[in-house]
């Protein structure tokens, strides 16, 4: 499941900025940490983030599906073709630094994807828009961010509709990977053209409803923020800065 999952968890009730700050900290933290153990602790933190949102199952499955092929690629590239020293596991000779590198890269990717999907599943686009509106952010920027968060579920819905229509007209989806790849061709054009036409019409419709008026919009139901959440966001920022400072200090040492 990719997209917002309604719920009442801690993250659902949190201010959307706090949820996004947590996901952002995971993203930035993933690049600041360089050792396998550190990175995999971050993966555990990303899993805890998903548990706090009550969306571990909803987020972990697509995160695994997205990460798994890249893990395999990383282990082949770095584990088999990496530098010495090497270790032998059964009939296979593996590069020790290569495996460490693959673990770091794979862990980073997993933490980032899991964090992003959890934020997507728990930060309601409507509440995010309300929060940004209350903060005086122009609607254009608000819409751009919120639309980005909702684009995946919308594309998935549209893909299903097009596939059903194409299947009614004889499209076969099974068979070899090559046949499946070929089946994507009749899907791609209507998906892209349809999305463009709809965006065109939506721009006109929203413009006619005053979206581009340049007036500061009224927030009808802005989410409540708290001193604790603001403190958490500042703490996350401080942690990220500290992680980068540690990284550069270690590199110099």
């Amino acid at each position, binding site marked *: 499941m990719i997209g917002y999952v309604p719920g009442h968890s801690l993250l659902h009730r949190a201010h959307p900025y706090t949820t996004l700050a947590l996901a952002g900290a995971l993203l930035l933290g993933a690049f600041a940490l360089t050792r396998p153990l550190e990175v995999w602790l971050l993966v555990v933190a990303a899993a805890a983030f998903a548990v706090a949102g009550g969306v571990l199952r909803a987020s972990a499955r697509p995160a695994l599906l997205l990460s798994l092929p890249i893990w395999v690629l990383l282990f082949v590239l770095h584990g088999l073709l990496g530098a010495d020293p090497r270790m032998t596991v059964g009939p296979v000779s593996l590069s020790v630094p290569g495996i460490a590198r693959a673990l770091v890269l794979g862990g980073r990717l997993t933490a980032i994807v899991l964090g992003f999907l959890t934020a997507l599943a728990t930060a309601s686009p409507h509440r995010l828009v309300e929060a940004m509106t209350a903060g005086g952010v122009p609607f254009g920027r608000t819409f751009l961010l919120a639309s980005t968060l909702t684009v995946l579920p919308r594309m998935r819905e549209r893909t299903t509709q097009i596939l059903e229509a194409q299947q009614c007209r004889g499209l076969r989806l099974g068979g070899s990977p090559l046949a499946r790849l070929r089946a994507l061709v009749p899907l791609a054009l209507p998906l892209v053209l349809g999305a463009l036409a709809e965006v065109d019409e939506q721009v006109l419709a929203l413009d*006619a409803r005053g*979206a581009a008026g340049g007036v500061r919009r009224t927030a009808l139901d802005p989410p409540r923020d708290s001193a604790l959440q603001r403190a958490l966001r500042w703490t996350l920022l401080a942690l990220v800065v500290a992680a980068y400072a540690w990284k550069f200090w270690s590199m110099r040492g």
Partner: protein
Amino acid sequence: MTALVTLEGVTFTYPGADRPALVDVSLELAAGDVLVVTGESGAGASTLLLVATGLAPRVVGGRLTGARRIEARRCGVVFARPWTQLTGLCPTVRDEIAFGPASQGLPREAVLAAAERAMERLHIAHLAGREPAQLSGGELQRVVVAAVLAVEPEVLGLDDPAAELDPEAADALYDLLPAIAAAGTAIVVATPDLERAARVATRAVALEAGRIVARGAPADVLGGTEVAGIARAAGCPPPFPLDVPALLRRVSR
């Protein structure tokens, strides 16, 4: 009555097009008008609607020559496909309808009052708490019309508004138009649905290749409706009745 929109010799060309979509079009729209614009596909009816409501060339781009005066402070537009006109960010119908007034920066209470008024006009108050994505096409189009009316447009454009609706919902939508016009709104409807348009139009315009080829009373311009055809075949002199009650009145005389 003061014209809300005046077009004098207007020619409009879309970006990248080698032929104009509208050629030398002149017309006026005043409060209370229900102007039906018709023509074959590609004749320019939708373009005329975009030009009359100020969306072309401001939003769609292109080149407009001739004189256009839009005295109306606000123009609203309803397109054929209701789902492309939603913000996609509002969890309830009430929020969706409140989007326009909120974009005008009105105080919260005024925004909610405007949304309530619009819902009452469209008889959709019972849908206020529903999720827009869960509504039928007919319900959704009424929500879209309410969302546009909530910004209290002085000119309302409808581009084939019943194209996606079942006959009952289409009838209900057209039946709303005279009351909206009577409240002081100028309405322009681009549609091939002459039967329904004829019931509500106060004036009509027929386009061919972007040029106005006929204008005047609906009975004169929309004489191609089935009811008009029956009246003609029955030997009635013009102007022909355009709906069944009018036909019965003529026959009974």
